[in-house]
Structure formats: C-alpha cells, structure tokens
C-alpha cells in the first residue's frame, strides 16, 4: 500500500421517519421515472423505494432497494425504539426471497435503486423531489477512500492465480516454465 487516497462521491438520502405521512408519492415518482417511456405508467410494485407501512402501529419507513440476495438471511433481529417494535425487515433494503419488495412484479427480477441515474444528472432523486413533507432529504458528500493501484491485465490474471493456488506455487510454476524456456 502506498497510502494514497482518492475522493469518492457518496449520494445519501436522509430519512426522517417522524415526518413520513405514508402518502407513497415516492413510490409513484420512482415507478414513473423508471417506466419506458418515462412516466408512461405508474405502478408502486415496480418502485425501488417502498414505504413499509403499518399505520395502526405507527410504522412508516421508506426504504430504497439495495442488493439482491438469492436466499433469505439466517435469522432475524427485532428492534425496540421508543417502546415500539420494528422487525429487521422494516429497515432492510435487500431484494430477497422472504418478501415481494424490490422485485419486478412480472419477471421476478430484482430491482435496485440507482439514485435516479440520468443524463443530464438529476439534481436529486425523484423520490426526494416529490417528498414535500421532508421525510426524504438528499445530500452529496465526498469521502476519502484508500486508492488501490489499478492492476494491468497480466497482473490481474496472476492475482487470481495467486489467490487460488498461493504465491509460492505460482512462483514455482513460473520458474519451471522459464527453465523449460
């Protein structure tokens, strides 16, 4: 490691659960934006942000679609916050087989939030734009990341072999091949 760093742009949606009114305008805007052509259809089931809703128990939690998992997790946690119980799934962003969130309703393929990638870039994601009550607030910041040296094609291939067989074995093999010349 050479200690060099680089800047990484982190896009963040701050979620203020106390402000959510459960209107699901975020779902409307997201599903519209990602329709083809844009806004030609509305379908919250296709939205990459969903408001986990349990009005009677005062649970309104907007979560955005994260990574796909082929299997559900090994167990669950539940959280008590201010005397109110939330399941782990309430906050979980994973598209997983345990629930029907974040999967295309027709194909079952996973959906993932892209923070509304567009050309030209949006000032803020669509869900944030329509959330006038301020439950969703967008911010961008730069964070420092350790810069990893970029590997060339051969280095990359060797790295893979090293990971699989160990450095010594690779070195031995290269030496043997060199001798045979």
């Amino acid at each position, binding site marked *: 490691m050479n200690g060099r760093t680089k800047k990484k742009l982190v896009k963040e949606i701050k979620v203020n659960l106390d402000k959510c*009114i459960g209107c699901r305008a975020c779902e409307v805007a997201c599903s519209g934006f990602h329709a083809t052509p844009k806004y030609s259809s509305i*379908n919250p089931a296709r939205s990459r942000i969903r408001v*986990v809703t349990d009005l009677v128990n005062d649970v309104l939690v907007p979560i955005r679609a994260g990574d796909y998992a082929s299997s559900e997790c090994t167990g669950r946690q539940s959280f008590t916050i201010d005397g109110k119980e939330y399941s782990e799934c309430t906050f979980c962003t994973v598209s997983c087989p345990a629930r029907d969130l974040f999967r295309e309703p027709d194909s079952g393929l996973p959906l993932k939030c892209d923070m509304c990638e567009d050309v030209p870039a949006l000032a803020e994601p669509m869900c944030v*734009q329509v959330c006038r009550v301020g439950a969703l607030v967008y911010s961008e910041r730069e964070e420092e990341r350790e810069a990893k040296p970029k590997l060339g094609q051969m280095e990359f291939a060797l790295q893979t072999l090293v990971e699989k067989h160990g450095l010594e074995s690779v070195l031995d093999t290269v030496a043997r091949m060199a001798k045979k010349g």
Partner: protein
Amino acid sequence: MRYAETGFNLEIDLSQGSVKRVATDPRLTGLHLGGQGTAAKILWDSVPPEVDPLSPENVIIFSTGLLHGTPVPGANRTSVSTFSPLTNLYVNSLMGGWLGPELKQAGYDKIVLRGAASGLVYLYIHNDKVEIRDASHLQGKGCQETATLLKQELKDPNIQVAAIGLAGENQVLMATIEHANSSASRHGVGAVMGSKRLKAIAVRGTKDVNVAHPAELWEMCNSKYKEIHENKNCGDPMAHDHNEGFHVDNFAWGNARTRRPGYWNKEREEKWTGLWKKVRTRDSGCFNCPKDCHYTISYPGRQTYFLKCFSKLTYAMAAFEEIDFNYDILGVTCAYGLDGFSTPQVLAFAVELYEAGILTDRELPDFPPDAPGRFFYLVEKIVRREGIGDLLANGVYRAARQIGNGAEAFDHNTTKKVEQVPLKLGVINYPFYLMYCTGEKMNITQIEGSFPQAPIADKERRKAFVENWDAAPERFRKWYLEWEPREHMPIEASVNVCDWNEAMHYVDDAIGTCAWLSSFRGQFGGSPPYHLFNLPKFISLAAGMELDSEGLLEVARRNRNLIRALNIRRGLRRSDEKPPEDHWKKRDPEMEQKHLDAYYQFKGWTNDGLPTKETLDRLGLGYVSEDFLERGILSESAGALCAEGSTGTVAN
C-alpha cells in the same frame, strides 16, 4: 390501450358466489369520466326503483376515480355508490386512503356487488385472483382489527382493506365502511355492505396504470406536489388548527340546539392542545398527496384509530362535554364503524327524548346519569340493535316516527331523512338555501365549496381576493365583488353559485380528486390547486381524451342529471326539497320559492324538480327520458313544452 383507467370492472354476485371480469365501454368514460358518474349509469341500468336498499337486489359499487393510479397528486378518493337505507335514495359516500389506486393497480376500475352471501364473507382481490372467502372468524371484529387480521392471514402487509364493524354487520343506518385512515361514512353504506354479509374487501394490485401523455403530465404533476404542500388554502384546516373557536362558538351543541358563544378561550385551547399532544401519535396523508389531514389517535384503553375533519368535535359537542370525551368515544365508534357526523346527533336526540319523558327507564334500564355514560350506553344498544337501540339505529328521522309519542317534534335537524350539520343561523343565505334543498348528497359539506360563504367586508380586500381568484369563471368574480355584507346577491347569482359549487363536486367524484384540494376548498381563500380551468388538461393528458372546461362542465351536468333521475325515479319531488326548518331564524318563504323556481329553470328541470325531456336528451340521457315517459313521470305534453324551451308542468 385504455389510459388512466383499466377498462375492466369486477362484477360479483354474492348470492351465486360468481365473479366476472367485465370489459367496459370506453364511450361511457367519455360521457361520465368514471367514479360515481359511471357508477350511476350501472345503478340506472341494474337497480329498478322499487328495490329495497337492504335487499339482495340492491347493488353497491366501489369506484376508482378516472385519475386514480395516475401520477396526479391527491387523486385517491374512492366512491361507494348505492341506494341508501337511510334515505331510500341514491348515496355516494367517499373515502380517502389507498384503496382506489390499489384496486386500479389490481386491474379494475370498479367492484360491482349484488346479491347477499349466506354467511359472513370477505372479498380477496390479488390481481387476476379474485375470491369470495369465509369471514365467520371476523364476525364482530372491529374495522381496524379486521384489516390487521386480514393482512396477517393473507401474509401481505401491502393489502388495502375496507371493512365494516359490528354496526355494519347489524345494518345500523349510520354504519360506515372504514379503510385505513379514512371512511365512507354517509347514509348507511356500511349497512348495505352488512346486508350483503360482506365483512371486508381486501385488495392487492401490482399492475401498471398507463397514461396517454407521460412527459407533459408528469411535468404538471411534479409542480403540484410543491404547490399543494405549500398552499395553506387546501387540505383540512381542522387537522392542524388548534383554535376550535369557529366550530365550538358557532355550531350548535346537543341535539343541534344550543349555541355557546364565548365557549372558546385561551385556557381551554391550552388544555385541549395539551391532550392532543398526548394522544395523537402521527398525522398521515392519503395516496400520493402531500397533505396530512388525518390524525392517528392512541387513547389509553382504546384501539388506535384515525381521526379526520369535524368528528374531532362532534361527540363532545353533542354531549356538552370536553374534548377528552370525544377522543375516548371515537375509540369505540371507529371500531364499531359508526358515522361521526350523524351518530352524535342520534345520541343527543335520544338523551333529549329521555329528558322529555318520551323515553323512560323502561326503554333505557339503568340509564346512567352522566352524559358520557349515556352516550357509551346508547352506542352499545345501537350497534347491537338491542331494545330501543333497534329504533335509534335507524337514524333520527325514522326513530322519531317509530318511537312516536311526540318524538317527531325532536327531529328538527334532518332533511330528506338525513341529519344535517348542527348549525343554527340568523338570516337566510340563498345559495345555501338552494344547496340544502336540492343537493343530491344531502350533506352540505359535499355540496358547498367553490364560492365563499360570505363577502369580505373590506372592499379593497375583496377586490384583491377577486384579482387572485383564478379558479372562478368571470361572472362569479363580478358577483362576489358586488356582494356587500348583510345583502343578498341577485337571484341569478345565487342560482349560479349553487350550480357551480355542486358541479365541482361532481367533477371530483368522477375523477377521484379530493374535495380538500378542489371542490370544497375554493370558498376559503379562493386558491384551490385544482379547478375548472386546469383539471381538463390533467384529464386530457392522463386519459388521452379531448376535454376543455365547458366539456368538463357538460360531464358534470350529465352525471348530475343522471343522479337526479335515479332519485326522481325513486320518488324525490319538490316537496322534499327544503332545509331544516330552524336552520335560519329569519326566513322569507316567498323569496325562497322564487329562488327554487329560478334554480329548477336554470337546470332545465320542471317546477317539480324533474329534468325535462329536452334537458335529458341534450345530455345524451335519452334512455332516461324514455323511461320517465314510460313510467308517466314525464308526460308527452310536458316534453313538448320543454322542446319549446319552457320548463312546463308535469303530470304525476
């Protein structure tokens, strides 16, 4: 492809247990748009006038509005259209929440229900899967509890549920249909659902709703979110204003009797607000609307419920109690599914009868001495239809006549058998006179709304108001500008005001937009987000139809006359059209009748309030005029007179 709508209705016969997915005629969308407009057409075609509202032959229709499921903010009010057991006339009761959009996402514009199941059932709709299921395990369960149990049972938290409670099951005529934070409360729609033995409807939809002109429509919608959120003149002001002086000082307490000016004061405001802070856990909105008009209330010892609008005060005022009592009893009545508008008046009426000795300890054994105790006691009797509760469950008008012995004299606040807003005022206001008389919805809040109730006293401020009043057609600006305090507007103006006010409700109720954003809210501040001049564009872009302001009014007129015709066919006549007798202290019978004459003439109705053949035919309702002629409701001679442009007289 159909835009904004799905083009399919679900037709369900609960007697036969049959479910049909039926394609609808797109021409009807052009004629009626959707919502209660197209529902009225179905009721006209399928329910003969002699059908008893609580019989299996009655049809109850859950309608999405044309704009439900599109990105248009605030389009979420579901219509429940049927014939009311309270009035024996047409009823269209509305609820906000999420049900309509979810139904459209499931692929249907309407659920049309007829017949009656042999046991208690619920309807489960998940896209193409539609099932009538046993609900015996839900018997007697509260409305919210039923929704929670169904979500658990069906293992889907995203299901939207509309359910009745014990009041609906027992066909109480004030029974509601409750859905999430909202309810369809008026004129016993819950009793009709109960008569069909339908405990609940559970809907889940994951299909697309398509719009015709996506980019343009989205651009208009996107700016509306901000406008609606920031516009103080829309949404429910009662949801956030803790100064209740307007209602408690001016509206009547008890059985719509007593005004208590000066009741409101700083000390009371602090006390009431303090309690609100303790029991209210959140404000929520409805589907795709940035306003938060509904409180979640968690009152100790009661199931959590959702409070909206005037029910914040109605029980307390009917019982002459403080706000604490209101929060407490709503915890019970929301679970039972009772209308927060009419029920308190029924309870106060019963208490008056007891105090007058018309009801005694024989009918009310162990009747508590205190008002809260009495109200709780009566609620339990009513929802079970036990003893005297069996009569009170029929509402003030019917109960008064069934109890007899002078009870009729205590029914002073109903018209067309409906408990009216508890207001007792001084001098008659003619636009309101006409609205009370002729409104097909009977509840003033569902008729009034676009034109202010009174002139602004200061001429300069009035002028400024008119200058910013984009929602108003030119003639209303002129009339308002010229309206001086304590004066009556010209008859022509009053007639037009009544017509415009109700027309905007007919627009909302066809497209599904909330009255808090349009038809009810123009009167306060004059800047509703949706109005006659911008709605046609929203509808055109979403549904792909050509429509301008005149075209929209024409649809409103068509729907208005069709609904009028439904009621005329069931016997409604001029003699029914009057406000509560003591609504105003100072009346002028001659002027009142002149106004009514002028209004009927303006509408193209006869002197008896019947739409003429000419009016009906011009609106494409020839099938209605034919039916009227066949039944002898209209006569050929009247038809001929109408053709000459006169309202004529009508045999019958």
